[in-house]
């Protein structure tokens, strides 16, 4: 037999379990379990992947020696480079530019445009991408972008929300930049022709986001990142700014004076390398979801492999807050093709209720993200009341039909077109049937330490977006990261352009920093088993990998 029997997208045995959920729905309609007490929260949080024992260790070398990080990240910091110094001929420069930007999500693309606005010619800016320009986390942002632009709101209130959300570990001056430029970014998006949701009278439609005390979430249907990035990328293309695709940066270059001075790029298809010399380098490589920290599925795109953090750290930049990882409680857990994908918080805020195998509501639907996620884990792995999928994954139900019972028919089609489409493709009608969810790895809270101009502590090296650290402290609020990308994309573009103009003498390109780093690795007794950056995750079948021979 080759096929499982499906009824409305679910195999027979899951269909039977759904009937239990259907039976208890009416009883649950007006009942949510109460929010947890402080003590209860504390206890359940021990089950959270970010707090549960054993997931982190100390970084043993470099600037942040002694700081904690997730094992998967520290593994990459304690890994050997992909290249050896003697393999690389630095005397032949393939591209000589003013500004090199690594990574073309929202942050990198925005940086290019603003650097160009500062007068850096479009052929003196190079944006290099590991995948296609735009294949990124940015494309997938659904929920929205924060900006305090309503009369009852202010940048100051936005500041407090972001600081509190980040457990006050954020850098205040960087957060100030974030919130103060937010209205300007909205203005810029409108100028470029982005279409943002509106009320009848032309005001922006602004919604709640978790952890804020004002409604300030601007959305473009549930395709916010798609609309923002495709408009910005279109502008980038109109300016004919120089762009490479399938050319990841695999090592930064330093000049004789210790300044960042470009990068070594690698052609994914032909395997040869290119040398870029640049007066300023902007790192915008995004996050690390594809490291599958603690074995969790992820919402992130294929190229989210922590490359930027690895490169910058080797070049001597300082990291911060890389120890905290954001998990989203409601990642999809069934079927296979959408595991890990984000099911927005808005589903719960509009009435969808988490329900266990026995059809019971077991947790207040809008606990903070970490508490909610922990409660799901407890239900599946301690109380054993989760639902097991055909591939062995466990999840709990998110009872989406309640949304229409509470808000009227048609609500789901209007508010969640992207979600409807995603589930329609797998024959699941979320208006009639619940969906299975489990926490998913979502966001890299920290990264390469930045300042209000996007500068790192390596001269000539700038950062923007998810790869940076300091903006969101220990925990990012939804809607602040797309904003971060555009605010600090803009700022890093402007300040890198200004800086590039001041760079006079160009020292000799070198990989000295890499050599030093390798020496540190050796001294620390780290064996050359791992190499980084990894560039792409490995998903090939185990049986095939076991039989591969390297000939070409």
């Amino acid at each position, binding site marked *: 037999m080759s096929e499982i029997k499906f009824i409305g997208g679910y195999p027979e045995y899951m269909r039977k379990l759904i009937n239990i959920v259907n039976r208890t729905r009416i009883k649950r309609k007006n009942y949510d379990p109460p929010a947890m007490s402080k003590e209860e929260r504390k206890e359940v949080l021990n089950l959270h992947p970010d707090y549960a024992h054993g997931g982190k260790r100390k970084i043993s070398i470099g600037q942040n020696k002694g700081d904690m990080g997730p094992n998967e990240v520290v593994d990459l910091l304690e890994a050997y480079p992909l290249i050896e110094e003697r393999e690389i001929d630095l005397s032949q420069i393939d591209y000589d530019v003013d500004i090199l930007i690594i990574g073309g999500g929202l942050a990198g693309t925005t940086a290019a445009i603003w650097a160009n606005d500062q007068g850096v010619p479009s052929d003196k800016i190079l944006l290099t991408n590991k995948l296609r320009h735009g294949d990124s986390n940015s494309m997938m942002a659904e929920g929205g972008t924060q900006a305090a632009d309503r009369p009852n709101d202010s940048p100051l209130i936005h500041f407090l929300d972001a600081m509190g959300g980040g457990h006050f570990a954020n850098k205040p001056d960087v957060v*100030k930049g974030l919130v103060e430029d937010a209205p300007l970014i909205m203005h810029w998006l409108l100028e470029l022709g982005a279409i943002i949701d509106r009320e009848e009278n032309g005001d922006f439609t602004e919604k709640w986001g978790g952890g804020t*005390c004002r409604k300030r979430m601007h959305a473009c249907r549930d395709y916010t990142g798609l609309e923002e990035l495709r408009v910005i990328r279109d502008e980038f293309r109109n300016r004919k700014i120089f762009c490479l695709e399938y050319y990841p940066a695999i090592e930064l270059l330093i000049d004789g004076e210790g300044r960042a001075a470009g990068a070594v790029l690698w052609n994914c298809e032909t395997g040869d390398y290119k040398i870029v010399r640049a007066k300023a380098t902007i790192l915008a490589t995004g996050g690390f979801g594809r490291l599958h920290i603690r074995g969790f599925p992820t919402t992130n*795109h294929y190229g989210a492999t922590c490359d930027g953090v690895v490169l910058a750290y080797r070049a001597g930049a300082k990291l911060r807050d890389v120890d905290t990882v954001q998990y989203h409680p409601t990642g999809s857990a069934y079927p296979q093709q959408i595991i890990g994908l984000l099911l927005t918080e808005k589903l719960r805020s509009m009435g969808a209720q988490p329900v266990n195998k026995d059809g019971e509501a077991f947790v207040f639907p809008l606990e903070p993200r970490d508490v909610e996620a922990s409660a799901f884990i407890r239900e599946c792995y301690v109380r054993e009341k989760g639902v097991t999928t055909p591939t062995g994954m466990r999840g709990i139900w998110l009872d989406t039909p309640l949304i229409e019972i509470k808000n009227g028919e048609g609500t789901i089609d209007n508010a969640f077109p992207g979600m409807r*489409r995603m589930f329609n493709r797998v024959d699941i009608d979320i208006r009639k049937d619940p969906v299975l969810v489990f926490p998913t790895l979502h966001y890299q809270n920290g990264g390469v330490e930045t300042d209000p101009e996007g500068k790192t502590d390596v001269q000539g090296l700038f950062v923007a977006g998810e790869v940076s650290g300091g903006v969101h402290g220990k925990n990012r609020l939804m809607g602040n990261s797309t904003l971060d990308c555009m605010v600090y994309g803009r700022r890093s573009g402007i300040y890198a352009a200004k800086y590039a103009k001041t760079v006079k003498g160009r020292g000799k390109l070198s990989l000295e920093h890499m050599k030093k780093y390798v020496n540190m690795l050796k001294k620390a007794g780290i064996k050359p088993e791992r190499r980084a950056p990894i560039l792409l995750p490995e998903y090939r079948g185990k049986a095939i990998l076991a039989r591969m021979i390297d000939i070409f």
Partner: protein
Amino acid sequence: MKEKMSIMDRIAESNKSVTTGIDEKDIKYWVTIYIMGKAYKVPAGLTIMQSMEFAGYRFVRSAGCRAGFCGACATVYRKAGDYKLQTAMACQTRVEEGMYLVQIPFAPAEKATYDINKEKYNIGVLFKHYPELARCVACNTCTKSCPQELEVMDYIQDAIKGDFKAVAEESFDCIQCGLCAIRCPAELVQYHIAQLARRMYGHYECHEPEHLKIRLKEIEKGKYKEDWNKLIKATIKELEKFYADREREPD
């Protein structure tokens, strides 16, 4: 054995089909597919993308978001015994017994360049940059090939009429995968035309809301300067207090 594993280990173990690649011994149901002509036995229930990985392909091209948002994974396939060429996103489509698959690198389509501030907001702009618009023969092939199930032909017809708003609304969920364009007998590049129309509509017709204008002025005039000086210097203790004292606006 399982009892001794920590909860985190048990989670990692049960998630491994999507985190580390699939192990044959976990698979009960199989299908046979043809990738670029070669037959492979792959687990049923996987996406085209996952099944190709299972078969040993490592994507360098044609994989991006893996979630149906970026358009990188456009695929053309045919089902066994069916003459019809079908189009889909490889990351969002389940494999079926007997599928013949080809991954296409993206369509080398020409995009017009323009300065949005200098264009005239009328029907002429679309024809100026994309004169081939006039060649649409209304065959509906684009609509049939769209993985987002958009009414592509309709938005092209709206573009011909110069109805920017209608194009913007109909094409809004376009992920620019290029599948419509590679199938179009008149060689239109629908998604670039739609992008121009949306930007024109956004730029010329969606005006800046008053509340945003006011906020921008306030910031420019330094309205928050004094408060910032206080906030930036505040200790964490003080910030914590300010934070706790925030009043939440009513729902």
